[in-house]
């Protein structure tokens, strides 16, 4: 393991709070191990800032193993940095070169207001889920799982949609700050399974309505979301959501 052989210049977005005006601030970092994760590199920066009596950079992180969806940095113009199918915590400094300048910004969207520095408020996603991203079942003994036969293809597609960790990279990278990939994944994971059927058309209408109310943009099918998604969520989910939305509005006799 090689250590301490990278010198970097960071340009980090610093913003005191939501109302304050932010700016990119330059930091020089020396002797960074290429085997550090991107967040560990930020830990080093923050240690140095604390030792100098300065405010550390605030950023979201939790599990640091790519499954919680908390980390959210926009690195050199791409969410979660230059590597495909990884979150920022899974990104290592060996993906950069000695002497690089790295620009780090928060997710930018009207629906994701900056809380401080690199941390944004993603509770808009929670409200979209609360609007219909669930199934209603009576409590009691759980029935045997095999009572409901599900074709393998269907189960796999539902599982792939369920891999979404809700990090918001799709919104961050979309030129329209659209949340279609996230919302469609959360709709699809239920629409593909028998348990999701009773509320299927009610769900798509309420979740889309909430998505619109939160101020996300409209999809223009650039495919940037799919390309940047750390979990590889497919654009097929957006088509499925659109199809379900059309069915709900023009075919279903149920009015929500």
């Amino acid at each position, binding site marked *: 393991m090689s250590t301490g052989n990278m010198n970097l210049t960071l340009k980090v977005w610093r913003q005191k709070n939501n109302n304050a005006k932010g700016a990119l601030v330059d930091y020089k970092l020396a002797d960074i191990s290429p085997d550090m994760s991107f967040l560990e590199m930020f830990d080093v920066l923050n240690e140095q800032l604390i030792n100098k009596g300065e405010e550390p950079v605030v950023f979201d992180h939790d599990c640091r193993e790519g499954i919680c969806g908390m980390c959210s940095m926009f690195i050199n113009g791409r969410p979660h940095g230059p590597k495909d199918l990884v979150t920022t915590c899974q990104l290592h400094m060996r993906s950069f070169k000695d002497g690089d300048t790295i620009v780090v910004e928060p997710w930018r969207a009207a629906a994701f207001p900056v809380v401080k520095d690199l941390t944004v408020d993603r509770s808009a996603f929670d409200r979209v889920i609360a609007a219909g991203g669930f199934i209603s079942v009576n409590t009691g003994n759980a029935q045997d799982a095999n009572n409901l036969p599900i074709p393998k293809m269907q189960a796999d597609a539902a599982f792939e949609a369920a891999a979404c960790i809700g990090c918001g990279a799709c919104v961050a990278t979309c030129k329209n700050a659209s949340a279609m990939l996230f919302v469609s994944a959360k709709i699809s994971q239920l629409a593909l399974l028998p348990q999701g059927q009773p509320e299927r058309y009610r769900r798509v209408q309420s979740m889309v309505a909430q998505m619109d109310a939160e101020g996300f943009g409209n999809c223009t099918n*650039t*495919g940037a979301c799919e*390309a940047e998604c750390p979990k590889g969520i497919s654009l097929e989910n957006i088509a499925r959501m659109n199809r379900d939305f059309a069915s709900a509005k023009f075919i279903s006799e149920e009015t929500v």
Partner: protein
Amino acid sequence: MSGFGNAFSSSIGKKFIMGITGLFLILFLIVHCGINALIFINDGGLTFNVGAHFMATNWIIRAGEIVLFIGLLAHIFQALRLTLENQKARPVKYAVNDGKANSKWYSRSMGLLGTLLLIFLVVHLKDFWVVSRFTGIPTVDASGHEDLYAVMKEKFQDPVRVVVYILAMFSLCYHLLHGFASAFQTLGWNHSKYNGIIKGAGVWYSVIISILFAAMPIAVYFGLIQ
């Protein structure tokens, strides 16, 4: 919400309008390009003038023309509305944004390409549509039909106009390259067995239509056809 509720005012509904009108305009271009390509029969525009005469006089076509303008205006106004909304969705821009890493430039530039096409359309309608509908075609051909082909030959003597038309066809090609498959995706017509056909048909359609249209001013300017 009741009945159709916010079917067309929601984000997805607005996109449905873009997709449906887009596919409608795609169908129109096939008719337009097909009839114009009659000039390549190389009979001095006789067959083309028959086609043009039919399009100008048949009442179903004339009624369709009204639907066409409604579709076109809906496509333009909806695009403007969506673009303004999308800009509001990201009030603070990124200092660095590496768009080319994850998407095609033309998929991100549909508004720009569409605006160029709109400007071209004003020129184009003034060149031909206004002449054939309002100011009148000055001459008749050997078969006694109004000689729209003569108008075409006269207009495409101007090299500036020829260049403008060719550049517009580049905009059209890239606009269609994204728009064709995108309309299917928006309408939810996504299916693993047909996705390849849709994408392939979209590319072929965009390239063939644009090349055929661009070939018309080129052929007339260089006198490659009678």
